[in-house]
């Protein structure tokens, strides 16, 4: 697994990035991912259900996320739902993507300061 270069996956598609970012905090089910993205972006980004599951399917095929067999505490557990989490590769890809975006943001800041001065 270590041989795969995470850069191969970047830049990530926006919906992939949002899903993976939501899973950074731990396992989550589809509906949860959707709500998390909605809250995080204050309602600006909505992952529509079919797109969400289509992306999840492809993320699993790409081995960036996987189905989690660990369930949350029984009182929070929703037995009908499947939970997903990042794989090791997924984590490295997310890291690489975040680095890439930070670079971008840094570059943007420099440019912005040049314009405002």
């Amino acid at each position, binding site marked *: 697994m270590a041989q795969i270069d995470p850069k191969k996956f970047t830049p990530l598609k926006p919906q992939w990035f949002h899903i993976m970012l939501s899973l950074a905090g731990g396992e989550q*089910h589809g509906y949860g991912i*959707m709500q998390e993205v909605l809250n995080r972006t204050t309602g600006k980004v909505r992952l529509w259900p079919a*797109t969400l599951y289509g992306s999840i399917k492809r993320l699993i095929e790409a081995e960036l996320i996987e189905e989690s067999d660990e369930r949350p505490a029984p009182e929070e557990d929703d037995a009908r*739902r499947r939970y997903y989490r990042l794989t090791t590769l997924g984590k490295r890809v997310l890291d690489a993507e975040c680095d890439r975006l930070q670079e971008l943001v840094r570059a943007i800041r420099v440019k912005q300061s040049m314009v405002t001065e």
Partner: protein
Amino acid sequence: MNDNKTGFALRVYRWLAEAFPHEFKLAYGTELTQVGEDVVEDIARRHGTAGLVRLIADIAARVPIEYLSEMQRDMRYSFRALLKSPGFALVSIISIGLAIGLAMTVYAGDLQLVFRDLPAATNVKQLVMPEQPVSYYYAEQYREQKNLFAGVAAFQSDVPFNIVLPGGANAKPERVFGQLVSPDYFAVLGVQAERGRVLSPALDRPGDAPTIVISDAFWRNRLDSSPDAVGQSIRLNGQTATIVGITPRGFAGAAAIQNEAEVFVPTTVRAALAPELANDVLHQRNAKSFLAIMRMAPGVDIESAEAGLDTVTHRLDEQDTAAPVRADKGGRVSLMPAGTMEPVPRDLRRAAIAFFAALMGLIVALACTNLSNMLLARAANRRKELAIRLSVGASRFRLVRQMMSEGILLSLLGGVAGFVLAYWFSVLASHLSPPTGGSAGPDMTLDWHAGVFSFTLAIVCGIGLSLLPALRATKADLTPALKEGSALQLPGHRRLGLRNGLMVIQVAGSLMLLLTTGFLVIGIDKASRVQTKFDPQSMYLLSIDPPRDGYTPEKTQAFFERLPERLKIVGGVQRVAFTAQAPFAVGGGTVQMSAQDSRVQTPVLVETVGAGYFAALSEPMLSGREFGAADERSKADAANSLPVILNESAARKFFADGNALGKHLQDGKHSYEVVGVVRDLSAGLTRARAMSYLPLTEHDFAQPPAGGVTIMVRAEPGSDALTGIQREISAMGPNLTIFNAQTLGEYIARSRSELRFAVRTYGGVGLFGLVLAAIGLAGVTAYAVAQRRKEIGIRTAIGASKAQVLRLVLREGTFLIGIGTVLGFLGAIALAKAAAAMADVLVDAFRLGTNDPRLLVGAPLLLATVAMVACYLPARRAVQIDPLKALREE
């Protein structure tokens, strides 16, 4: 209200969620539906109707995406599966490729070439022409029928011209083919000039200085695309004519598939420029030397145009008091669509399409059956894998799709192979030189039509060949399939019904193909075989056409009278004779003749030959004499009857006892006296093999046919007399164009090259069927042996001999081959009969071919032998089965 909307959106959502591929639904279906239910209220609240629409649009767009990605995966999977069995893949691709390649060759080469729309013409569907030639006078009368036709033009095709290009004052004339057209010809076709103008009745009037229009090919090839070609003068048959326009690219005249027209000369020029116009032919109502082409008036269809034209023709015929009253009650005119490269009579067109479609359908179906069979055998090996996948929840539809994608992938690759093959065929075909005279016909082109055709064919094949095996394989009863022991089941015939059926179809189809193509090959071969009594390389053929080089009739006559004496001086020359067509020509003109006191009209081929023709060919007369110098001077009029020589077939046809000498024949215009009978010289692929030979007369010398007058010179074998002959002719007539100089051997080889190509193609098709059948049978037998390994093992263990085992395996194959052979034999006879009934051209080929015992006995025997060998090789493996191993396999 809002609740209503949400409820409706949710219903649509659920319905769409059900439409996802099975495997997607298994994994995410429940959650997808549930999330939808969870968020629908929220979405309606936040985004209103637009949000609901977006929700539905999202899921609706996703369904096809999922299917596509599944297909993509299937293709990848199939590709890997095929890589694992390269032998199977290769054989399949080659057989499908051959079938598609052959079908494409026929499509692009024969059908499309003939049925392609006339280039540059407008509204080609409105163009029609009578099948029979008409006189110019009749065409002018037809033009008056404004209710039927928007325009009527008359023209002559394949008219030769000897031309001298501008600036080449002293150059030798070249011979090009053109059309003699009425000035409204281009208007009727709707062809505009690319440069300059086309001919028109207003600008090209009788008595004006001669004007011509040239084709784009002429402009490019002979005038080097000169920008000031329009307005230049060229010499045509020794007269000066001005180029007024150039036609669009690709236009080579209507009905000009034999010889592309390079120049278009109006009928308003004088006869000195176009000898075809001599004798005031434009005003003679019986000179049927023109073709008419009509543009139907809006709203008129071909049937009503034909009916209307028939009435007019009847009336015109009745007005003509000079012509004999004809009693025929039937139609006198039949129209055919003329908006294609080669106008083909409607019934022939249907027959040709049907025949080729049947032949090609047979080939493609065979290849598909074959592959079906092999896929079936493959699927049987994968029975267990499929059963497992079914039992863990794969949908049958999904498995069928996956198996079909393998078939489609194979046939698509086969399509590519076929395209390459067809391209190769087209290159091969273009290397074959055309028969004598005129320019090469248009090359067959593989354009995007052909590409679409092969792609469609490949997809159809792919679906066709894989659907049955896929459905069958996935119908497997799970429980026995999962248990290894199932192979012990005796293979009942009912259970293998489909496979056996395919095998019978395969044998029958292959035999049909083999026999049908065999009929054609043998028929064509027999019909075109030429037997000369001397070395055909020792006879030289040269053609000249003095009137077109500016010779007056008197000068021409004198030239031909002196020529034999002059040529006999040349070293090695033994005999000299003239003829209007090269000996052993394929096809030729037919006339209806009848014996003097008989009303029975018989079609006979006519050849016009000069004095000493048969002597030059070393053909002794069976009775009577051959033409002499006196016959060349005979004139046909009411008082005199022309001498005629018949071949044996004609003599027997007209006079039951075959004793024709001194008897009289007539053809409506003239009366003929039989002066000699000669043996049947091969005449090529024609139905009427009765032939009559008429003498070459002054009239023919003054107006030679399209091929000019051919000079036949027999020289001593081994002597190269050709240079001397050419020098002698040039000395006599320095500005004469000598064309088509070749030996008789070369001429025969060249004029038969198309036939030989056809023979090879059909032969190849037949062999292809044979190979396919062998592959299919071998595959099926091998599969059967593999299936019955265990049974055979047990039989061997309890003492069955090798011969017994072999018999057991071969028995089934033999039975199927037997049934297939009988069916195929009957099918081939039926196909040949049907084809012969539909098209005259095929009658002779089939008549000669179907009589050949070698083929009738040989082909089924050959097929059966190949089939038995194909069964035997894998069956031998059954004998080698080690009973211990086979039994232990469980």
